[in-house]
């Protein structure tokens, strides 16, 4: 089995603060991390590798510093890691990004399983992996909690095993059945990601990530559909939300505060 895990380097959004004077985002000093959801996708791949034997390939598209998360992926147990990087890829929206990723997977593949996190914590779109599946014309399941590949009887090789997937929906959990190849987005609840060890972290630093650039994918890509120019959506403007409610302060002892609050809510017809 050959498994690809698509990951993204993101700013640690829990560390982001707002400059109270300029009302802008302070990005300085905010560390870049592996998207937390992607860590669970990698763990799912590594567990399948532990159970059935598999080659796990981790890849990310981004600038050269994104190599940090690939080193982490290698230290956790990925067999090979790839950085997809090219100046012409810059500015890609989810459509263009998923298109480039599909070409890279085509270039490195074929893969039996492609996994990614449910969403990235910076953009929060949750679209890239699902869009990737459509580009690849591959079956896709999002919000996966659990994925089991039917084991083949000892000695036999099952070329098309049944895959049973638990998927989180808004109402509960669905049990789905399908076959490979398959694309999935993985939920945090699916597993507890392993840590790298001190030794494997050192090994990962020794290992050099492979790079894939536009030239490598030229035969597989329509250049008019990548980068800022090839992206169907465009960010017009970004801004820090304004928050300025004119709140009424209710003073007094707790008992009086409670009384006044209820009275004011009733007056405002919020409470009957």
């Amino acid at each position: 089995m050959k498994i690809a895990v698509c990951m993204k380097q993101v700013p640690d959004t829990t560390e982001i603060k707002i400059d109270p004077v300029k009302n802008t985002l302070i990005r300085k000093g905010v560390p870049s991390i592996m998207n937390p959801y992607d860590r669970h996708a990698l763990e799912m791949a590594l567990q399948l590798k532990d159970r059935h034997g598999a080659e796990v390939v981790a890849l990310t598209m981004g600038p050269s510093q994104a190599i940090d998360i690939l080193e982490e992926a290698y230290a956790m147990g990925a067999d090979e890691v790839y950085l997809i990087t090219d100046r012409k890829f810059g500015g890609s929206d989810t459509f263009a990004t998923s298109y480039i990723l599909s070409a890279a997977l085509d270039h490195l593949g074929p893969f039996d399983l492609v996994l990614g996190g449910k969403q990235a914590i910076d953009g929060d779109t949750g679209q890239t992996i699902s869009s990737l599946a459509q580009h690849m014309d591959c079956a896709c399941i999002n919000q996966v909690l659990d994925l089991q590949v039917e084991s083949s009887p000892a000695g036999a090789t099952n070329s098309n095993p049944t895959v049973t997937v638990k998927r989180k929906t808004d109402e509960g959990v669905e049990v789905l059945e399908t076959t490979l190849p398959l694309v999935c987005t993985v939920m945090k609840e699916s597993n507890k990601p392993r840590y790298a060890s001190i030794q494997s972290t050192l090994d990962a630093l020794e290992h050099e990530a492979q790079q894939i650039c536009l030239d490598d994918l030229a035969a597989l890509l329509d250049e008019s559909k990548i980068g800022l120019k090839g992206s169907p959506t465009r960010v017009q403007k970004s801004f820090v939300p304004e928050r300025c409610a004119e709140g009424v302060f209710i003073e007094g002892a707790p008992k009086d505060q409670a009384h006044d609050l209820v009275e004011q809510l009733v007056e405002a017809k919020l409470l009957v």
Partner: protein
Amino acid sequence: MTLLYTKEQKALISLVHDVAEQELKPYVAQADRDGKCPEELYEFGFDLGLHLVEVPKEYGGTGLDYETTAMIFEELAKIDAGYAITFVTTFVALRNVILAGTPEQAQYFADVVKQRKFAAFALTEPNAGSDVAGMRSTATKVDGGYVLNSTKTFITNGGIASIYIVFCKTDFEAGAHGITAFIVDRDMPGVRVGAEEDKMGLRLSNTTELLLDDVFVPEDRVLGKVGEGMKLALNALNLSRAFVCTMGVGIMQRALDEALAYATERKQFGKPLASFQLVQGLLADMAIKTEAARCVVNNTMRLMDAGSLVQLEGAICKTFVTDSMQEVVSNAVQVMGGYGYSREYPVEKLMRDAKVFQIFEGTNQIQRTTIAKLLANG
């Protein structure tokens, strides 16, 4: 960041930071209250390979230098120094066997530790603390080995170790030259763990008595030469002394981080605490001491990597770092006021944890005496 870290060092610090934040931090307050580190918390430490970081590759370790090892344990000590010391004590014991023992002894000791087991160093006795030569433990020569009788106290990892280095007197007439070190297994007949200390701080560190009643050890368990135990002990102390300093820096950094975060968030008279000059003074003093301490520790580690025994430098480092710690943790409590004193917040624990650093691995009074002696002797 004070030091010029290599890429490798940055990666390891970040790894230990992330794991300790997730796997240790949430459990520290309760474990501190209980005075016991739950056994399952050791798992992530072993998974990381903390027990083998400094151990040479030929014995199955990672083979990191002292400098990098110190950085890792500083980071871990930011979350809990008692937890960190459990692992430090283990690899320091193994290092001493590698330095003083035969290759077979080193392999044997390493093989035990590799099975995710702790080691301990049993030197102190109820009536022999700083005065090592005053110890009462005896090792009596018998056919094929020695019979040990001993009561050791304040033994770090005493109750959780699987293997010990124990110091006993083989010759009562010879004073400091009558002490010999032995490798003792936990499961040898006559080895007993005594009472556990109920300590003020470092409560995740296991500290117990160790009792040996007529414990027979074969000849090949003598570590180093008979009668040279004192030298071995002092060399070992140089090493562990340097490592408690790195943990001290971790505690100081944590105190600074907590106080700074609080002073930035907490508002009084409509302004954050950090904007008041007297508070700024406290914070600046903390940063000065912390940064200086880190530099001194780093220098000591680099000297050790270069082969120095750091007799003088280590004593200076220990005294400076652990004295500075007291001021830094106390300032943290001061900055946080009532919240600093409250058990709801972590800084009162840092203050409790810090005190013992002036006491163990040679009290700071003994260190000063040593410094003065070494200076005078040039």
